């Protein structure tokens, strides 16, 4: 194989922004590879890395279940494929999710990231916010966090590394080759987190 094959799960949500940020990351890092929108199990089968973008986790989960993509993603992650979940993607990667208002949820989850998520943890859209945050542990001391009806990580297992916090709330985590953030790096011009993820894929391959 020549270059990396990176997919952006294109069921629903802000796919194009992640395609762009990932392409720019490959270019800046001088790594050979392609970035494609993926929707079907066949497309997912060939990937070296996957980003699950922001959107509505109930929608992305339900529809990926329908066409068998969810099962294929599970298989790939179990085999060590690096995956980056953003907002809805973070929720989908988790073992357990509850909603701040509605409570316990019965929605399809990938069940990998050993965390318990609180959906809409900061409130509704009017409470969506921007703020400067930090991910020192992975060499990103300053990052512009865009939080849109964002979830937070309430509890994390012992294998989960906490990358960033907003006051008492955990907003970014890493567990092996899995990264998850509450905020939307693809909505900013800063591609440092996407670059970090691309490097993770390169190391794995």
């Amino acid at each position: 194989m020549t270059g990396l094959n990176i997919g952006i799960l294109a069921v629903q949500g802000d796919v194009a922004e992640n395609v762009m940020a990932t392409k720019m990351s490959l270019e800046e890092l001088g790594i050979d590879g392609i970035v494609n929108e993926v929707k079907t199990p066949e497309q997912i089968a060939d990937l070296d890395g996957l980003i699950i973008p922001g959107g509505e986790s109930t929608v992305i989960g339900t529809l990926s279940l329908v066409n068998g993509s969810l099962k294929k993603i599970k298989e790939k992650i179990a085999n060590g494929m690096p995956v980056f979940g953003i907002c809805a993607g973070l929720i989908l990667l988790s073992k357990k999710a509850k909603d701040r208002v509605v409570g316990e949820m019965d929605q399809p989850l990938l069940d990998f990231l050993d965390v318990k998520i609180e959906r809409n943890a900061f409130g509704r859209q009017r409470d969506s916010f921007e703020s400067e945050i930090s991910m020192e542990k992975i060499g990103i001391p300053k990052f512009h966090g865009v939080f849109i009806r964002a979830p937070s990580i309430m509890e994390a297992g012992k294998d989960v590394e906490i990358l960033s916090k907003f006051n008492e709330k955990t907003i970014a985590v890493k567990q092996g080759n899995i990264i998850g953030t509450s905020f939307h790096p693809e909505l900013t011009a800063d591609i440092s987190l996407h670059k970090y993820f691309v490097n993770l894929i390169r190391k794995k391959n």
Partner: protein
Amino acid sequence: MIPLSGDSGDTKGIVEEKIGSFNTRRGTSILKRGFAHMLKNGVVMDVTTVEQAQIAEDAGAVAVMVLDKLPVDVRKAGGVARTASVRIIQEIMDSITIPVMAKCRIGHVYEALVLQAANVDMIDESEVLTPADETHHIWKWGFTTPFVNGARNLGEALRRIEEGAAMIRTKGEPGTGNVAEAVIHIKNVNSELRRIKSIYEAGDDQDLISVARELKVSYSIVGEAASLGRLPVVNFAAGGISTPADAAYLMTLGCDGIFVGSGIFKSEDAKERAQAIVLATTFWEDPDKVKEAQKMIDERQSMLGLDTKNLELRMQERGSTA
């Protein structure tokens, strides 16, 4: 790709606040337009009750729109159509996890303020309700909550964006079950965009300025749309969508997603139809999947629909000259 930064000198809707040890900003363009981006490739469903909202969420709706009456009933009832009961909006917000939108009357600043205070996720300044001010739409930059507005052509769309709309829905004729008007308007917008894009590519600034004058918008927003070759915000199709094939067809015309009004809950098979329309919107590129979606519904249970030629009330025309 759609840009996220909107331009306005008005920062009234932006709230700066220190939370713990963090400085935060709310109500910025990136947050308002970014919210709309998260809805892309999704279906927003009109609902009037908690039960309908739950069916919508279970079917895979990306958000719900709360109304007092579905558009077809607004049409039948006549009289003045106003924003939905705050109590029902709140009950719905407490029972589902997806975003909840609600409609206010065109130009009715205070209905919008009430909806913002009620904490809805997005406000639809909508022609389905009776306009409160035909000549002035709401100045949406003054709000922290994002707005979606209807438009029939490029000029209307850009005027709404200049007033602060974070999202556009291309209007059809609501409550008719007839997709014809939505199709016409999307094609209109697309062909106008192609026209200004070609002017932009020819580097003819003078012609772009005359387009801006013709559309009654600023030169800068015409330039932005012309360079992108699309609207500078997320654009959904709306009005008259009744079947999965309707939804898939509108997606092929370049829409970012779908609003379904009366089409679902005025059919006899709402639950299956809601799921089928979501499937068709997601997998619109694949006719086999849309066929499967179409199989989930029964045409004999579609809403009857209306011929849009002989309507007494043309909702789409409301507020469109402003």
